[in-house]
């Protein structure tokens, strides 16, 4: 069964450093998403991506964040200058049409020290 993959599974970085989280969505999916989950809290929407551009973004998704689909398979989330409060699990998801099941990747645990 096709699945969403994410790398790395765990990333440790120092405050102020740039990080890139990578995702490979399911190949025939059209909508791509990033979410984050701070430990012990709910999952929060960051951004959605469709037709090679950002479709929607939340208040969390400020200028420190950017997304890119550099080729036909990868979907990346970049955090330019990490802060301690960016420590969280970051999930990538994809779906075929909107409203359909979003398939989640296993997540990348980001630890900012």
């Amino acid at each position, binding site marked *: 069964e096709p699945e969403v993959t994410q790398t790395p599974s765990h990333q440790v970085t120092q405050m102020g450093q740039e990080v890139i989280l990578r995702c490979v969505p399911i190949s025939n999916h059209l909508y791509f998403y990033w979410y984050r989950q701070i430990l012990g809290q*709910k999952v929060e929407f960051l951004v959605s991506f469709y037709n090679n551009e950002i479709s929607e973004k939340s208040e969390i998704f400020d200028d420190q964040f950017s997304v890119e689909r550099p080729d036909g398979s990868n979907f990346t989330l970049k955090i330019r200058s990490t802060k301690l409060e960016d420590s969280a699990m970051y999930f990538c998801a994809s779906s075929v049409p*909107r409203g359909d*099941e979003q398939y989640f990747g*296993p997540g990348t645990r980001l630890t900012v020290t």
Partner: protein
Amino acid sequence: AQTVTQSQPEMSVQEAETVTLSCTYDTSESDYYLFWYKQPPSRQMILVIRQEAYKQQNATENRFSVNFQKAAKSFSLKISDSQLGDAAMYFCASQPGGGADGLTFGKGTHLIIQP
């Protein structure tokens, strides 16, 4: 904007019994979707069940069913014949029907299965 409220931080049920997890939501959209996701200790998000708001019939997936009350904006999840593998965090979520908005999640209910 959408909001999702799960008022039960934790629920406990005996194995083989039935449990109902509550969820209420608020939305100004006329077209939207509702979901229940399960998050086991591995933290993988797994879809349990999905409901299209325009459908009156409650969704069912094997031992999982929902009670969708549109007027009351309520979307509860019933798990029948609870199994040890059902132990997890359960998140209720909503999504508008138009555009590509992400899911709005509730805070989750931690479900404990007593053997």
